């Protein structure tokens, strides 16, 4: 039997090797590179210790990218979950055609963020659809992506819009798992629809909320594709995210060491956020 088990273990060797070679080893390589002053291809590398990390502290564009990443991460997580839950509750009332709405809202999740950004370009550009719709109501439009502050809000909105369907289907599945009996019992006790939402639906949805929030948060914190296609980080890094900044430093500025340092900080930050979130939700789960 022991021999059989050992034989069996051979089966995970290929997968383990792939992961060790292409993920874990590059992670250590990145950490090491972050201690170097290196352009990414020349044979001369200079060991500089923590210099790259110290440079981060005074880099205005890094700070901007970091703050934008926070907005993309937490802003879209908030919007997606609130809207996704609202949509799920709405579709759960089962009117004729609710499935059509689900199909349409979920569709953008399938489309690449890069292409979605380009599609949205036709909506937010100067003579785009958004300005035209606003003009129907007599509101003057603007060059949405020309302004950094507005641009980063647009990116957050586009990302939330695109992945709202993801939250929606998670919450629809979660709602279906809640037994109707709880609501009937609450109705007999005279609960209003708000109180039964607050004290039955919400607590029982915690597992669904926890997965949706964590998946969205990680997705938002590593936002890249849509930034490239909607604004290409501009104007002047105003909409850059950390992922964008890593690419930019590595391939445009040819500062592989510095880009690695940004990557290490980003990795630690995302790790930190997901652990905190996991703990937070674990404590709020209820047993029924």
């Amino acid at each position: 039997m022991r021999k059989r088990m050992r034989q069996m273990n051979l089966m995970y060797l290929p997968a383990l090797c792939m992961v060790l070679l292409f993920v874990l080893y590059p992670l250590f390589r990145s950490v090491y590179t972050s201690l170097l002053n290196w352009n990414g291809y020349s044979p001369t590398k200079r060991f500089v210790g923590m210099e790259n990390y110290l440079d981060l502290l005074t880099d205005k564009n890094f700070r901007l990218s970091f703050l934008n990443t926070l907005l993309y991460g937490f802003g879209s997580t908030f919007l997606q979950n609130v809207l996704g839950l609202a949509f799920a509750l709405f579709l759960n009332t089962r009117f004729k055609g609710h499935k059509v709405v689900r199909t349409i809202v979920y569709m953008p999740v399938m489309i690449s963020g890069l292409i979605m950004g380009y599609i949205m370009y036709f909506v937010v550009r100067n003579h785009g659809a958004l300005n035209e719709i606003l003009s129907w109501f007599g509101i003057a439009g603007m060059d949405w992506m020309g302004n950094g502050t507005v641009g980063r809000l647009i990116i957050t909105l586009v990302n939330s819009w695109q992945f709202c369907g993801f939250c929606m289907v998670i919450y629809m599945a979660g709602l279906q798992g809640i037994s109707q009996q709880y609501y009937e019992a609450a109705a007999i006790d005279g609960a209003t629809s708000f109180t039964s939402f607050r004290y039955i639906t919400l607590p029982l949805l915690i597992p669904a909320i926890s997965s949706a929030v964590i998946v969205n948060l990680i997705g938002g914190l590593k936002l890249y594709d849509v930034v490239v296609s909607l604004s290409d980080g501009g104007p002047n890094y105003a909409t850059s995210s950390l992922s964008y900044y890593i690419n930019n430093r590595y391939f445009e500025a040819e500062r592989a060491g510095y880009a690695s340092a940004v990557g290490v900080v980003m990795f630690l930050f995302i790790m930190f956020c997901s652990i905190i979130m996991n703990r937070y939700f674990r404590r709020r789960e209820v047993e029924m």
Partner: protein
Amino acid sequence: MKAREEKEKKAREEAHYYAGQKKGLWWKYLLAALIIFIYLMPLYVLLMQSLKSDTDISSAMSFPEVWYFDNYLSIIEDGTMLRAILNSAVVGVSTVLLEIVLACMAAYPLARNDSRFNGLVRTIFLGVMMIPPLTILVGVYTLLVGLGAINHRWGIVLTNVAFGLPMSTFLFTNFIRSIPRDLDEASVIDGASVMQTFFRVILPQLKPIVATVAILHGVSAWNEYAYSIYILQKPEMQTITLCIKKYFSSVRNDYGGAAAAAILAILPLVVVYLVLQDAFVQSQVDSAIK
């Protein structure tokens, strides 16, 4: 007599109930229409743009002045788009096949053999799942350069597989755990080898989870951009996302052509999604709620 009265009363009540529901329904349809509008409007604008010629200056929301199909014709004649779709299909299918083979093989011992060393292996897979691919861009890219993987399709396939494996191994492991161990033990008593047990007993039962992984990682391989752009630099290797990027960045004033390219790029996936939408939604839910 009394029965008839009661029947009438019931019918009246029912009619009243339905009238009430109908009255309450209009806001639902209004809201549904608003949601549909918000979600379809960008696609509608894109479609209209793709059917307009360069000289057509009608506004974004209106139909073209003349329905113009040359944008599509010139893309099809040009051929780069079709080549890109083919490249994406090759990369996507190879990624999914390799990943499924490696993941279900890896999952079998991890689900069945709870030794302490296997616990460590499981922890490695779970931990690696937390690493966002772009954070280690420099490490991965310099490794790929060292391996000579730049400008080879296998470079992006292996990268995709490596980043997808932890998640799919995890899904397969959980699924195999739900298959009763008795089945394995019965085949052991019958004298089957490890491989025979795996192929004859376990593999046939994995269909639903294979579909889940294939959909999830097929879609993400099709949509992959961040690594492809640096690995597949030669024009003839371009996948669909890279091709679209080229259309939008080099021809900023050919809006019609770019829009038509975007329509062609999303069309294959959207059609597959519309046909298999329940499977798509289910796979997303299964992978998120563990």
